[in-house]
C-alpha cells in the first residue's frame, strides 16, 4: 500500500511540475503577477510529493518489503540498517529518486530563501527547475519505476553489492548528487537571465552561494569516493581516470571555474556571457555524467544498470536540456550588454586565465573520456584511454594555473602591478626553487621521475605564497600587535579562499609524493615471516576466520615493527559475503604524516602446503593523508566562505534594491 502511495505521489509531482514549468513562465512574459506567484507554492507542493515518494521507498527498504521488486533485488534482511537505508540509492531507480528529491529540495529552497529575488527572475528560474523535474520524473515513471511490485514476493532479497556496503560509499552518492543537482540552481538562473536578457550583480550574488554550496558537496563526494576506492579496492590507488570518475570531475572543474567567474560578475560586472555559459556547461556536464553512467555507452568499473531504452531517454533529456539551453545562449547572449573592461594583468585577468585553464582541463578530460566512443563510432577500432593520457595532458595544464594562483589574490582589480606582486613573492619563489633542488638531490637526481621536483616546488610556491598573502593581509610582520584584530575583521570569504588555496597546495604534496614514491611488495608470506616495507618490518602472525553480520572474513594479523621494536598490529580482511556471494578485500591502513602503510591479505598459496603461506600485498604510500587533508581544507574553505555575511543564501536587501533599480 505504502509503495503505491509513493508511486501515486510521483505522478502528482509530475502534474505539479508541469504546471510549474508553464504557468510562471507565461506569467513572467505577460507581467501577470498572479501567474508568476504560482511558482512558489508549486515548488513547495512538488517537493512535498517527491519527499513522500522518497519516504515510501525508504520505508520499503527499512522494513525489508520484498514485494517491491527494487527492494528484493537490492536488499536483504541480514544487512545492517545503515546499508538498508543506503540501499535506497545503491541502485538505478533509487538513485534517480534521490536525484529528483534533491532537485525538488533545491526548488523548495528558492521559495524559502528567495523572498528578495526579483519576481520575474524567481518565477522563470523555478519554471526552468520544474522543466528539469518533468524530464526526470517522466524518466522515472516511464522507464525506471522504483515501486514496481513482485508477485509472489520472494522470501528474502538478493542483497546489495558488497563493494557498496561501506560507510564511505553509503554517503558518497548523496554528496555527489547534492553537487550535481546543486549546479541546476546556477543553470536555472542562467536560463532565466537569458530569457530576461539581463545579468547583473544581484544575479551573481544569488548564484554564487548556491554554486559554492554545490561545489562543496561535489568536492566532498569526490573525496569520499576516492577515499573509498583507496581503502576497499585494495590496490593502494585512489584515482583511476575511470569514465565515471571523470563524469564527476568534469562538473567539478567547470563548477570551480564558475565559482571564480561569478566573482568577476559580482564585483566588476564583467565576463557575464562567459559566466552564463559556464553555468550551462557545469550542469550540462552533470547531466552528461548521469547519461554516461546510466546508458552503458562507455565501459566502466562502476557500470550499474545499463539499458539501451533508458539510454535513448536520457540522451533525449540531455539534448533537450543542454542543446536547448545552448541554442538559447547562441540566440540571446550576443544581445547582452558588455561589462567593465580590464587589463590582462589584473585580478579579473588572473581569474579569466584560471577559467580558461579549468575549461581546457575539463575539455581534455571530456575528450579522453569520450575518445573510445568516438573511435568506435568512426570504426577506428576499440581503444581505451588510460591514465597516461590524462596525466600527460591534464596535469601540465594545471601547472601554470597553480603558478598564477599564488599571485592572483594579491593583484588588484582592473589594473594590477605584476612586478610589485612578484617582488612581494620573491622569497617564496626562492624557497620553491630551493625545494625543487632539495627534492631532486634527495631522490638521487634522475633516479626518480623529473616531475617530483616540479610538483613540490609548485606546492611550496602555492602553500607558502598563500600563507604569505594571509600574513600580509593581517599585517603579521608590519604591525604584529594589531594582527589578531585585523584577522578577526578579515571577511570570511577571504579566509575561505586562503584556506582552500592552501588546501590545494597540501593536496599537490600528496599527489606528487604518492604518485612518485609508492613502494609495493607482493609475495607469498609464511606465518612468522617478516617483510621490510618503507622502513617498517611487517610480520605475518596468522590468519583466522571471523564471522561478520552478513559475511565471513579471513582476518590476518600482522605485527608491525620499526627499528626492531614492535609498534602495533594490523588486521586486513578478505570477506566473503553471503548474499550475494562475492569476495571483497578490506585493507588495513596505518596512517602517519609521512605516509600510509597499506596491507592486503590475499589467498592462501596452494604450493606452500597446509598452514603455509598467504599471498600478501604490502605497500608504503607516501603522503596519502595529505591528499585527504588537502581535500578537507578545500571543503572547510568553501564552508567558511559560505558563512560570509555577504554570501548568505537569500540575496540580501542590497541585491533587491539593485534589482529594483535595474
Amino acid at each position: 500500500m505504502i509503495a503505491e502511495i509513493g508511486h501515486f505521489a510521483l505522478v502528482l509531482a509530475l502534474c505539479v511540475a508541469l504546471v510549474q514549468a508553464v504557468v510562471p513562465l507565461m506569467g513572467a512574459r505577460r507581467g501577470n503577477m498572479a501567474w508568476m506567484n504560482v511558482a512558489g507554492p508549486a515548488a513547495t507542493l512538488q517537493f512535498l510529493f517527491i519527499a513522500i515518494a522518497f519516504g515510501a521507498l525508504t520505508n520499503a527498504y527499512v522494513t525489508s518489503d520484498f514485494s517491491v521488486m527494487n527492494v528484493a533485488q537490492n536488499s536483504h534482511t541480514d544487512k545492517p540498517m545503515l546499508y538498508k537505508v543506503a540501499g535506497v540509492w545503491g541502485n538505478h531507480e533509487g538513485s534517480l529518486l534521490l536525484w529528483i528529491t534533491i532537485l525538488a529540495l533545491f526548488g523548495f529552497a528558492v521559495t524559502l530563501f528567495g523572498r528578495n529575488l526579483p519576481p520575474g527572475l524567481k518565477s522563470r528560474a523555478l519554471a526552468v527547475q520544474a522543466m528539469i523535474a518533468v524530464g526526470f520524473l517522466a524518466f522515472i515513471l516511464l522507464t525506471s519505476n522504483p515501486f514496481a511490485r513482485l508477485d509472489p514476493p520472494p522470501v528474502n532479497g538478493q542483497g546489495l553489492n558488497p563493494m557498496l556496503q561501506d560507510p564511505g560509499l553509503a554517503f558518497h552518492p548523496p554528496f555527489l548528487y547534492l553537487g550535481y543537482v546543486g549546479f541546476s540552481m546556477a543553470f536555472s538562473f542562467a536560463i532565466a537571465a537569458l530569457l530576461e536578457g539581463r545579468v547583473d550583480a544581484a544575479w551573481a550574488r544569488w548564484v554564487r552561494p548556491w554554486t559554492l554550496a554545490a561545489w562543496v558537496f561535489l568536492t566532498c563526494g569526490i573525496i569520499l569516493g576516492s577515499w573509498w576506492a583507496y581503502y576497499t579496492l585494495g590496490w593502494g590507488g585512489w584515482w583511476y581516470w575511470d569514465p565515471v570518475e571523470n563524469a564527476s570531475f568534469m562538473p567539478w572543474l567547470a563548477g570551480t571555474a564558475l565559482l571564480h567567474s561569478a566573482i568577476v560578475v559580482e564585483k566588476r560586472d564583467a565576463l557575464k556571457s562567459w559566466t552564463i555559459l559556464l553555468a550551462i556547461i557545469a550542469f550540462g556536464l552533470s547531466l552528461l555524467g548521469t547519461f554516461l553512467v546510466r546508458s552503458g555507452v562507455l565501459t566502466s568499473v562502476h557500470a550499474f544498470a545499463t539499458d539501451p531504452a533508458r539510454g535513448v531517454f536520457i540522451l533525449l533529456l540531455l539534448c533537450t536540456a543542454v542543446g536547448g539551453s545552448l541554442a538559447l545562449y547562441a540566440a540571446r547572449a550576443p544581445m547582452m550588454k558588455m561589462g567593465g573592461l580590464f587589463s590582462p594583468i589584473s585580478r579579473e585577468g588572473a581569474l579569466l586565465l584560471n577559467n580558461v585553464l579549468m575549461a581546457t582541463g575539463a575539455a581534455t578530460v571530456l575528450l579522453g573520456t569520450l575518445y573510445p566512443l568516438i573511435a568506435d563510432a568512426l570504426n577506428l577500432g576499440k581503444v581505451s584511454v588510460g591514465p597516461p593520457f590524462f596525466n600527460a595532458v591534464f596535469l601540465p595544464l594545471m601547472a601554470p594555473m597553480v603558478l598564477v594562483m599564488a599571485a592572483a589574490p594579491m593583484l588588484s582589480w582592473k589594473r594590477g602591478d605584476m612586478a610589485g606582486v612578484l617582488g612581494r613573492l620573491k622569497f617564496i619563489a626562492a624557497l620553491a626553487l630551493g625545494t625543487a633542488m632539495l627534492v631532486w638531490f634527495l631522490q638521487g637526481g634522475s633516479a626518480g621521475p623529473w616531475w617530483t621536483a616540479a610538483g613540490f616546488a609548485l606546492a611550496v610556491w602555492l602553500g607558502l605564497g598563500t600563507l604569505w598573502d594571509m600574513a600580509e593581509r593581517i599585517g603579521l610582520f608590519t604591525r604584529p600587535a594589531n594582527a589578531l584584530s585585523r584577522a578577526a575583521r578579515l571577511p570570511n570569504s577571504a579566509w575561505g579562499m586562503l584556506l582552500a588555496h592552501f588546501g590545494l597546495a597540501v593536496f599537490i604534496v600528496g599527489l606528487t609524493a604518492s604518485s612518485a614514491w609508492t613502494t609495493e611488495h607482493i609475495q607469498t608470506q609464511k606465518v612468522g615471516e617478516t617483510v621490510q616495507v618503507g622502513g617498517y618490518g611487517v610480520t605475518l602472525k596468522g590468519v583466522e576466520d571471523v564471522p561478520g553480520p552478513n559475511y565471513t572474513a579471513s582476518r590476518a594479523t600482522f605485527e608491525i615493527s620499526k627499528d626492531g621494536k614492535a609498534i602495533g598490529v594490523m588486521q586486513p580482511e578478505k570477506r566473503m559475503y553471503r548474499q550475494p556471494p562475492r569476495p571483497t578485500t578490506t585493507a588495513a591502513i596505518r596512517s602517519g604524516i609521512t605516509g600510509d602503510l597499506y596491507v592486503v591479505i590475499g589467498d592462501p598459496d596452494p604450493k606452500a602446503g597446509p598452514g603455509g603461506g598467504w599471498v600478501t600485498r604490502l605497500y608504503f604510500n607516501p603522503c596519502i593523508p595529505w591528499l585527504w587533508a588537502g581535500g578537507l581544507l578545500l571543503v572547510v574553505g568553501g564552508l567558511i566562505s559560505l558563512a560570509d555575511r555577504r554570501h548568505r543564501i537569500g540575496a540580501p536587501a542590497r541585491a533587491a534594491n539593485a534589482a529594483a533599480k535595474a
Partner: protein
Amino acid sequence: MRRFLYVLPVAVFAIMALFFLKGLTLNPRDIPSVLIDRPVPEMSLAPLPGRGESSGLGTENLKGRVSLVNIYGSWCISCVQEHPVLMEIKRRGDAPIHAVDWRDDPVLGAAWLKKNGDPYERVGIDPPPGRTAVDFGVTGAPESFIVDKAGVIRYKHVGPISMEIWTKTLLPIIRELEKR
C-alpha cells in the same frame, strides 16, 4: 565572427550528441574479430608429444565438418575453469573440438591435458610468440572459434565457455551451420 563564437557551444554539443546516438547502438564490451566470415589463417602446427604423429592442426584439417577451435595454454587459469565443459561436450559428441596450445611449452601443454582430460581431436602447438593465434585475432585465452565446413570462421567466443553458453549460443550456431 563574434556571432560564430556564441553558436560554437551548441554546434560542438550537436556533434557530441550524434556520437552518443551512434554509441547507444554499439557495445563497448564486444570486441569484434576481424576474421569473422574469413577463411582460417594458413597454418600447419606440429602435434603435442605423445598424441600421435598426425594429430597436429593444419588449415586442411578444418574443412569438411563444422568444428570448434579452442585456444588454450597450460599457463591459462580460466582454461581450467572451462575445461570440464569441453570434456562434457566431447562426452555428448556434440561437435568435434580442436585446439591451439598457445604460447606454450609442448611438454607442459601435453602434461596439462593428461592431468585435466583431453577433449580434443587435433591439437597444434603454437610456440611463443604465438603467431598463428595472433592471425586468428586472439586477444587472450581461452577463446573459441566456430569454423564451418568450408573452413571459414563463423563465430568467435571470448572467455571461458560455460554449459549455458554452449547450449544456448554456440551449439545452435553449429547446428545451423551443419544444415548448410
